[in-house]
């Protein structure tokens, strides 16, 4: 097990004002764009280059550019991801780029009267499934493999007035005293991977997987004097758990099961002029498409401790 201290800038929270060029407003940055984007998942980019030793890397960086469309319920994007990790037991050096489609399966009901929005107590009931689908070219330098990967992940959104439902899905909940908030995002779907070229036959061929997961975030909050609708966090724990199973095709590793658990515990130290956040993160498991693979036939695990600066 290895430890590394990281100073991290959360790029995607830097506000882009009205004067910003339109093309820049359509850019998004996350660690990955495969799944639901409800929880925080900022891009991670650290490189250490010592004079005498080999450089070390921890890069989980995804870039998205929204394409033009007049649609009201869907968004097409070009995406690229780069994953590189030399602090875990098995190294990662993985590049992906391709296309993403996000679609909301159920259209919101039209308002009876648009001025209902001005009623402070009004809240519309909205329940829907959401689809995140990607199709990507994939290159993995460690495996020496090239191929395609595609994912289709569904998540569930539910938001209603508190009088009619106790739990929201994919939308933040808070308790009666408004000092504790939590978010739950269920996901399920499929992914396929076909490596048409690889240095070893182990990594060559087709595999289809079933995927199920849950993202949970919860933590302590308190009122924000500057904005009553955006409370401030004291601390926040985020757990993103996924389980993949090789249903059809070959196995790239010793097991058909691929668990992946990512946890982050954030303590908020400063809120102005920038947010300063400190906390550990723990990763366990494997993710074949991203090149995060088993080591000695066991899931990998590693800790990081990070200072994060958020504007």
């Amino acid at each position, binding site marked *: 097990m290895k430890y590394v201290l990281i100073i991290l800038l959360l790029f995607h929270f830097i506000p882009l*004002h009205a004067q910003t060029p339109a093309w820049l407003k359509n850019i998004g940055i996350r660690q990955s764009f495969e799944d639901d984007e409800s929880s925080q998942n900022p891009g991670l980019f650290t490189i250490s280059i010592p004079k005498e030793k080999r450089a070390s890397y921890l890069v989980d960086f995804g870039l998205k550019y929204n394409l033009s*469309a007049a649609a009201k319920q869907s968004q097409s994007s070009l995406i690229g991801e780069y994953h590189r990790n030399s602090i875990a037991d098995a190294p990662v050096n993985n590049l992906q780029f391709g296309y993403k489609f996000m679609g909301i399966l159920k259209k919101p009901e039209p308002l009876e009267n648009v*001025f209902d929005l001005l009623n402070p107590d009004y809240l519309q009931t909205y329940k829907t499934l959401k689809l995140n689908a990607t199709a990507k070219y994939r290159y993995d330098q460690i495996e020496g493999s090239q191929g395609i990967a595609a994912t289709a992940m569904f998540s569930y959104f539910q938001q209603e007035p508190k009088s009619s439902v106790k739990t929201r899905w994919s*939308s933040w909940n808070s308790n009666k005293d408004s000092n504790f908030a939590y978010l739950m995002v269920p996901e399920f779907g499929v992914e396929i991977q076909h490596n048409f070229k690889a240095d070893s036959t182990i990594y060559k061929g087709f595999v289809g997987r079933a995927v199920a997961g849950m993202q949970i975030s919860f933590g302590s909050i308190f009122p924000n004097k500057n904005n009553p609708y955006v409370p401030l966090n004291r601390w926040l724990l985020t757990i993103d758990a996924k389980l993949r199973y090789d249903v059809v095709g070959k196995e790239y590793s010793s097991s058909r099961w691929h668990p992946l658990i990512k946890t982050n515990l954030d303590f908020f130290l400063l809120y102005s002029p920038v947010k300063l956040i400190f906390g550990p993160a723990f990763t366990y498991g494997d993710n074949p498409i991203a090149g995060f693979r088993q080591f000695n036939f066991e899931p990998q695990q590693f800790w990081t401790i990070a200072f994060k600066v958020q504007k």
Partner: protein
Amino acid sequence: MKKEKLQFPPFLSTDSTHKIGNVALAALLNRVKSARVVDGKILIGDQELSEYLAGQLGYESDDHSIKNLVKAAVLKAGGKIGPPQDLPDSSKLSDVLTTDAQYVLLTSYLDQVVKHFNEKGAVSLKEANACTLVQDAVDLVTGKINTSPL
């Protein structure tokens, strides 16, 4: 079917406020009965009927401005309740809306607000996604309404 451009007064918008609304409406109708025609214009006191009604229905007040409608749309899309006036113009949309489904709700609301004032106007998800601040969304809607051919 062509949608009529009707603006209902806020006090007629929900069941919970109907009782107060009915009293206010009765008083308003009673005043309208006193209207008289002078030189082809319908006057109530010294005001034209259309100006009088607009003032009474609060269309020009800040509470029912486009800005507050957009702020209310942002709050409702984010699942939050409360007066829209309290949402700062400089709030980041990503602080209030945390998932794509909420941006789809916001797009639907903004589209309906724009269409209410300009039938040919429309707001896409891409345009809503490109808004960073609440003020950006206000500018987007105001711009779409102001391009009305009327």
